[in-house]
């Protein structure tokens, strides 16, 4: 019925007492997600909002509450440590929302995570949502900062590097009465834990996902790699959009990874790869949902 997380998934929040982490923990609780623990070193034994116990370490929080997934809201200088603490606790999934982590920290983290069981999503990402079946998709699993109410439980998988562009696609689907299995924001940094392709493979294996929207942007070659795999292996219709066709080369467009450099990572090359793979191309971001629905 979804990938990575279900409405029953137990979540812990690293950085639960910071203003950003606290605000989004409240929103996740209001959405009906199972936030069962928080971690702030030095505040162990306290309660968040009189309902969520706080622990000093991730290992303790996971042991005491059965949490298997962490949402990470700690500031950039401490994010590398926070991610590796979640890995050390053998969680299934760490979702790092933090924007602005130095690239070399991520290079070290990815190396240190090799052979470990934890999957990382992000950093610099909106997180993921598996919508619930209540009103405005209440009762789903919301990890991160996406607005919950725009979702609807259903069968379309959405994967994107960008936050607001994901919401745009989700809202187009929901407005047309079409629900989503899981919506994943993999983040806009040049080094991230999970790629477009990783998520596409999971959607391909998920019997409850019937179609996929993949949103990419300039920079790197992750979209091309995903397209190549889709061409050979994907059994489900995929529609896509690539942002940044008008971006000037050599300039970073907001996201640290969104840059055309040395003639690499252009929108044109990505769109050509999508075309070659039989991925439906939305000519404008307004047509992401319609492009997929026409293929189904």
């Amino acid at each position, binding site marked *: 019925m979804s990938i990575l997380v279900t409405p029953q998934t137990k979540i812990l929040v690293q950085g639960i007492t910071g203003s950003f982490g606290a605000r989004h923990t409240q929103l996740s609780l209001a959405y009906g997600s199972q936030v069962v623990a928080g971690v702030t070193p030095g505040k162990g034994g306290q309660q968040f909002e009189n309902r969520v116990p706080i622990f000093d370490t991730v290992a303790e929080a996971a042991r005491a509450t059965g949490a298997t997934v962490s949402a990470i809201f700690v500031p950039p200088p401490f994010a590398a440590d926070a991610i590796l603490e979640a890995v050390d606790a053998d969680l299934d999934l760490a979702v790092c929302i933090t924007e602005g982590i130095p690239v*070399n920290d991520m290079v070290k983290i990815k190396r240190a995570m090799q052979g470990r069981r934890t999957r990382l999503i992000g950093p610099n990402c909106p997180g993921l949502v598996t919508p619930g079946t209540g009103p405005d998709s209440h009762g789903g699993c919301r990890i991160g900062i996406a607005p919950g*109410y725009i979702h609807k439980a259903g069968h379309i998988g959405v994967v994107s590097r960008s936050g607001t562009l994901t919401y*745009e696609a989700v809202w187009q689907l929901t407005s047309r009465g079409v629900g989503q299995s899981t919506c994943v924001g993999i983040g806009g940094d040049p080094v991230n834990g999970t790629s477009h392709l990783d998520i596409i493979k999971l959607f391909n294996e998920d019997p409850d996902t019937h179609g996929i929207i993949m949103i990419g942007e300039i920079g790197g070659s992750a979209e091309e790699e995903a397209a190549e795999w889709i061409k050979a292996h994907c059994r489900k219709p995929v529609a896509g*959009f690539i942002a940044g066709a008008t971006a000037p080369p050599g300039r970073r467009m907001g996201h640290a990874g969104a840059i055309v450099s040395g003639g690499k990572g252009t929108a044109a090359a990505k769109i050509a790869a999508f075309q070659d793979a039989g991925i439906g191309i939305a000519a404008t971001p307004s047509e992401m949902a319609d492009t997929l629905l026409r293929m189904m």
Partner: protein
Amino acid sequence: MNIHEYQAKQLLAQYGVAVPAGDVCASAADARTIADKIFATGEKMVVVKSQIHAGGRGKGTFKSGFQGGVKLCRTADDVFAKAEAMLGQVLVTKQTGPEGRLVSKLLVAAAPHIKKELYLAVLLDRASSRPIVMVSTEGGVDIEEVAAHTPEKIVKETIDPAVGMMPYQARKLAAALGLTGDLINPAAKLLLGVYKTWWESDAAMVEINPLCIVTGADGKDTLVAVDAKIGLDDNALYRHKNIQEMRDLAEEAPLEIEASKFNLNYIKLEGNIACLVNGAGLAMATMDIIQYFGGNPANFLDVGGGASREQVTAAFKIILSDPNVKGILVNIFGGIMDCNVIATGIVAAVRETGLSIPLVVRLEGNNVQAGKTTLRESGLTIISGDSMADAAKLVVQAVGK
């Protein structure tokens, strides 16, 4: 963040990378003093190099008519004359655009006899999430050309971040560059130094082009970094006070500096339809859709997730200080943010700036009806667009009129 060539060479020298003897200066008199010292060591030639962030300096032209931003000189008097011709003048190269860049600093350095030009760079390989060190025997030319026509002449070595670059990897690359005998060990030391500069400075890219085999005054061959370019990872600047001090605001667009004060991400473009958007992906997509419907975006502007009233007002002021702007498209997907708060901010900003050009607003998300009502009842001529496509068409029409 980018830094000047002389700053890049200072960083490299700290890690033991050989660079030609020289110094930076801001006056022709100082240029002569530096040149005198270099000639006194027995060097036959000195080079005077304009310090701007753009490439193509050697083939550039000053607005004064003086040709070339990089000049070789045989005497200190000539260094003085060339420095006088360059300082305080605007240099136009293929990378600066027609407006050019003001040259206010010069690097004056020894120009030893070059036997061979090579290429060396360290950068992140996104596909493997690891650093790579890249070399080529084809130095002194555009590496993109080499990659396109003779990719076999580029040799790469992937670095394991757990151990860093190992000496054997440096020797492998030195061998790939055709270096032998007495040059192998100095080359390995230089390669390791360049990699260390990249890693410890949190650089996005270090490029030495050309890396040269030169014949010294004593007749012996050595390797030196004749040119150097370093770009830094902005996210890591907080832990490098020394590099922060290398920032040169004169090299940045004034509007982009102003925007950064309000945590706005603004990049000026050439078109006439300004856009104000929340989120980088949506901002790029908004530029794209303007072009799709026949318009030209004037900027990239991401106000971030929280867009306060102050930020929206600052964003309007920045947009409006670009004289090319003939219309504005505001595209907000207010997921968590209340659309009515944003609408109130837009109305206040329009009043405060006395906006007189067409404004199209597309709001979607949380409390959107109240937001639209606020815009409608403001008495201002704000055009409302329902979808992104709708809004983009409306603003292109309004500007085209």
